[in-house]
């Protein structure tokens, strides 16, 4: 509703007095930018100004910060040992000693939920970074060079995108798990790899279409006319201008991948003992859901809040970066 009236006011101003327009131009864009009016802002600093005024952004950032601290320093939150099980306290409900109760093996659920944050965050971050790096590299190359390279990479992306996500990762992980006896590092690496392998096509397609749009712009033609090498055009001109949509995707993907890790662990093919993660806890609790629902509900709650925080952050970042939505 406010957009047309502002535009109308601006038009009236232009029609009215020329000196006022130049004054307005010198003053820079009003609204939000109270800091330095003379400095022109780029897309990203513009988005930052927009973000700072959104409560949703601050709430989600706070939750994410809390989870990251939890993952980095679990000792700050609990002094209990997450790997100490005592069968005499099996399936006891929440109490003053153990806020969230004990699970079937007599593990302290609160301690395990705190320690479980690390595996979930590590898988989410590594899978996102890997998938986005791989996908955007392929995407920007396919978009810029086109031709047979584009054809091959696009068909390759189709192959991996054609596999249903959960189905594909179950097959990959069952194959990788076949040897058995893997250590914690290998278990985490397997899950990260399988998520990466099935999700890179999404960021590739986003990057490819952004690169195709950007390479027809005049500044790229100008750079090419001045004799810039493809390497320089891609790194200096295309990359900064294609980053925004991929960035938005990766924020949302981070939350989705944390949920996906939990789904795979729930099915028993993802993370497993000795790794502690929310999905592993939910997998262990699902068979006792009738007698000890708290063992499932607490890790599920932490999982949901974390994913929610990343999805909210992604929403806020998208609205800030997409000028059309303002």
């Amino acid at each position: 509703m406010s957009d047309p009236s502002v535009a109308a006011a601006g038009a009236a101003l232009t029609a009215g007095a020329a000196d006022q327009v130049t004054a307005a131009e010198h003053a820079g864009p009003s609204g939000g930018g109270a800091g330095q009016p003379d400095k022109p802002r780029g897309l990203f600093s513009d988005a930052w100004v927009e973000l700072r005024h959104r409560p949703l952004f601050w709430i989600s950032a706070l939750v994410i910060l809390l989870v990251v601290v939890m993952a980095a320093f679990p000792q700050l939150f609990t002094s209990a040992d997450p790997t100490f099980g005592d069968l005499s306290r099996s399936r006891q409900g929440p109490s003053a000693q153990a806020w969230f109760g004990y699970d079937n093996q007599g593990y302290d659920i609160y301690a395990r939920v705190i320690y479980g944050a690390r595996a979930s965050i590590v898988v989410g971050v590594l899978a996102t970074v890997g998938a986005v790096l791989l996908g955007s590299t392929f995407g920007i190359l396919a978009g810029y060079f086109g031709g047979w390279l584009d054809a091959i990479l696009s068909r390759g992306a189709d192959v991996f995108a054609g596999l249903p996500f959960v189905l594909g990762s179950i097959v990959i992980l069952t194959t990788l798990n076949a040897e058995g006896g893997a250590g914690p590092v290998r278990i985490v690496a397997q899950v990260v790899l399988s998520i990466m392998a099935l999700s890179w096509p999404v960021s590739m397609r986003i990057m490819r279409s952004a690169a195709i749009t950007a390479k027809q712009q005049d500044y790229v033609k100008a750079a090419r006319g001045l004799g810039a090498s493809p390497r320089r055009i891609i790194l200096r001109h295309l990359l900064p201008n294609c980053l925004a949509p991929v960035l938005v995707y990766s924020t949302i993907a981070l939350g989705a991948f944390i949920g996906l890790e939990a789904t795979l662990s729930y099915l028993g093919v993802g993370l497993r003992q000795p790794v502690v993660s929310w999905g592993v806890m939910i997998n262990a609790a699902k068979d006792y859901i009738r007698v000890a629902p708290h063992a499932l509900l607490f890790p599920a709650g932490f999982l949901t809040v974390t994913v929610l925080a990343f999805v909210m952050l992604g929403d806020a970042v998208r609205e800030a970066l997409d000028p059309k939505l303002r």
Partner: protein
Amino acid sequence: MGRYVLRRLLQMVPVLLGTTFLIYVMVWAVPGDPFAGKCGERACPDAYITEMRERFNLDDPVIVQYGKYMLNLLSGDFGETSSGVQVIDRIADTFPVTLRLALVALVIEAVIGITAGIVSGLRNRGFLDSLVLVSTLFLISIPVFVTGSVIQLVFGIQWGVIPPTVSSKATFGELIVPGFVLASLSMAYVARLTRSSIAENRRADYVRTALAKGLPQRRVVGVHLLRNSLIPVITFLGTDLGSFLGGAIVTEGIFNVPGVGGLIFRSIQTKEGALVTGLVTLLVLAYLVMTLLVDLLYAVLDPRIRYE
């Protein structure tokens, strides 16, 4: 249009070959004995293993094995499992159930998602709009297995309102709750898509024209606005039907639905390679065909789009 369809069909061939080859290699080239544990509590006799290696062409190089498998598939022969059951029979038993589940989920998703989207899209920045936005955020964030387990625990076990699991007949009525769980995530996306599409089109010239020539609000919304705004939603629903068919493993597991998802999960774990490759080929094919149909539907619904 005809040439476009032909080109798309030709493009589907390498994708289908690539995907099935990937699955074939991963299922059959696993280190370890593919027939371990297939003969009960004793090692399989040599005669059985020789016979089986012969039947599944395991002594050929992988690419030849795959070629023979695909040739059989083309002539309609899906092969047998290691216990001698025809793969096609197992698929015929389970596929109708999954199809029913997917249809129920699709209807629930479409009705709830589109209604919520229309309501919030028409009242920009109101209470209902915020309500829809917040609840879609939650739906997107809760993993499907959490929704399923909690609904099963609360409504099925503690309150006893619904049967906690589905019987082997899996009628439409029994599949409503699993369908709701399966649809919960996409429902949120449909609501958001409808909302943004309506909010965008509400300011379009043709809506202003319709209002200016004095048409009643109901007709403007129902005929002019909705028909144009629902085009992206319908295409989303179409691709979703394709992914429901292959992505119901978790939901089917929780509610014990005797469908393709459970079958495929069990056969991956018991290394029934023929069953896995056959099912995946069918599911990928269904997904690819759905995407093609959706793209064609797009041109039918929106005459501005022309395929050369």
